[in-house]
């Protein structure tokens, strides 16, 4: 197997074998990332492949000085997920103006394993799942989520509250542990 720098160099030359090697190397991590936002496998694949398409098209713009390659790819794929989420029709227009200190102070996913995280996320509606993932798993702020998802901050808070209510059982169990 070639080193990552060699793979990147070949990807810049549009070498299909190297692109496949890179894709397979990052696939588990990126699939897990997309799964945080989408329950449907087709949506996960779409978001992942749209993101990787951007990666392969713009791999020449990657600058080593600015950070690790995986971090760059991860960010692009996550933005691809957000783009896909934005293109979806908003399901709720409710707003909530409660304080978020409670939400911030408690992270139900911090010590959980991947299987447990996904099982909990599967209980949530799509939009709530995405916002919950961004807030708890990707550490976005409410303001950032509202900017990225193109929704109001109150709507973000409503989704977070909804996720808290739906995951109450899991939260309680975690607290007891």
């Amino acid at each position, binding site marked *: 197997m070639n080193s990552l720098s060699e793979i990147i160099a070949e990807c810049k030359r549009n070498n299909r074998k190297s692109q496949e090697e890179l*894709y397979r190397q990052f696939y588990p991590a990126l*699939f897990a990332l997309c799964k945080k936002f989408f329950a449907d496998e087709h949506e996960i694949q779409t978001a992942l492949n749209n993101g990787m398409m951007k990666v*392969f098209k713009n791999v020449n713009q990657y600058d080593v000085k600015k950070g690790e390659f995986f971090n760059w790819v991860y960010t692009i794929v996550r933005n691809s997920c957000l783009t896909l989420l934005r293109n979806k029709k908003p399901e709720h227009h409710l707003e909530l103006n409660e304080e978020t200190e409670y939400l911030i102070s408690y992270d139900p996913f911090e010590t959980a394993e991947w299987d447990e995280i996904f099982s909990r996320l599967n209980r949530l509606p799509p939009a709530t799942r995405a916002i919950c993932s961004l807030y708890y798993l990707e550490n976005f702020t409410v303001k950032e989520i509202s900017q990225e998802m193109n929704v109001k901050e109150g709507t973000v808070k409503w989704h977070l509250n909804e996720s808290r209510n739906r995951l109450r059982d899991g939260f309680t169990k975690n607290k007891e542990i």
Partner: protein
Amino acid sequence: MKKGRKHINQKLNESYPKPEVPADASWAMMNEMLNAGMPTKNPINWSKFFLLTIACMLIGGLAAYYFWPKTTSDNLRKKTVNRNVEQQNSAGKNVKNRSNTSADSLGHYQDTVFNLKEDLEEINKKPISSERDANHLSLQDNTDKTGLATPAGSNESTTILAKKNKKRNRIDHSSTSERNGEKVDKSEKRVYQTTQSESEQILTKPDSQKSEATTKPRAVRATQNDIFDVELLKNRSVNFKNLLSYPRIRVTPDARNQKAQLNKPPGSLLRNTGIALQWQSAIPFSGTNYFLKSGDNNSAYQLLIPGLSISQSFGQKSAVRFTFLPYGQYFTKDILVSNTNTEQADSSTIVTNQTSLVKTRGWNAGVSYERVVLKNFEIAAGIFIHKQGHSLLSSETVTANDSTSSFQSELINRKYAATDGYTNQYLFTASLEAFYTYRKIQFGTGVFIPLTSMTPIITNVRPLNGKLFIRWRLK
């Protein structure tokens, strides 16, 4: 952001769960997208490309060499050589009739005339006796630096040569094939025997005739119509050509003037005109679609199309050059010329299309002023006009709905049409160049600075383009 900006600092050292969708299936979908959006190009075989370029240049060079009209000087030289050969043949016949030289040696006489130059070069490489050196020196003293043999000098030298040849004949008469223990080759032997016969002929004549023979030019008498290319006479070869009437060539001042007039080009205006073939490639400062055209086909061969360049010199350091290139490219920085969002009938699917201008192509022509700044190094500035006959557009379409989105990319070749409005028909640029001259080849580089906008859609789209060129001066 908290926790060390986790959302922008990810690591690949976690043990991620096994994806529900196998990597093979997902890659198959990714591969389809890549084939549609980023098709793999056939790698350019640079070795073949350069070999083809060199072959084309060689064929062009040979064609130009054979079909280009010969100059007056070349015709004159050919004419002069033919005339001299005829005279030598006639002189050879006279020698054959008058001398007692063996038939074998005279049978090779014509060969001797034609191969004289080569024979003499071979002889010059061998050790030469002191007598021959003396002959050379005596004749060289009577020739000026330009190789012109003066009549008086040639007469005197002929006398000296005859005497010395007689002396050599007495000493070395019995051993013509060997001298100083060294075997003499056939060509030298022939020339040497001819020398002997000539010497004997002169010496056996009566005093009155001898005097005439040694004091007057013989066999060839220059007239105003006879012009001889004196450059063909070499100092060292005069020794042998002397016996074949070469030193007796008289180049009269009138003949020199006539030759000079014949060498002069017919028109004074065309005297300083140069013609050259020029291969030029535009260099984009951004973008990688240099050899691409629509359908992702390769168009590298188009670089082989040469242009015509005509220059007119003024003085030693200035020139004006007109250049016409039948094929040239001009690159943009993939400027976005169209961006549309269309909502389809079901109102849930949005099609976003972005079209960007990659490059244009067409003929270009211009006039530039050149100035010599260093030895073999010149700079130039000029004005060019580029016909933007065709444009290459990159179209990217994203179709998105609630559940999925797809991406499609393609390159489109569009011929200029006023209704399209993607490009202006003509682009005016200023050009700055620097080039180096090595013999008949000029290597140069430069930059095009647009004076007008490439496209009417956006004002002031004026990307710089570089250029590299090779110019082969035919005249």
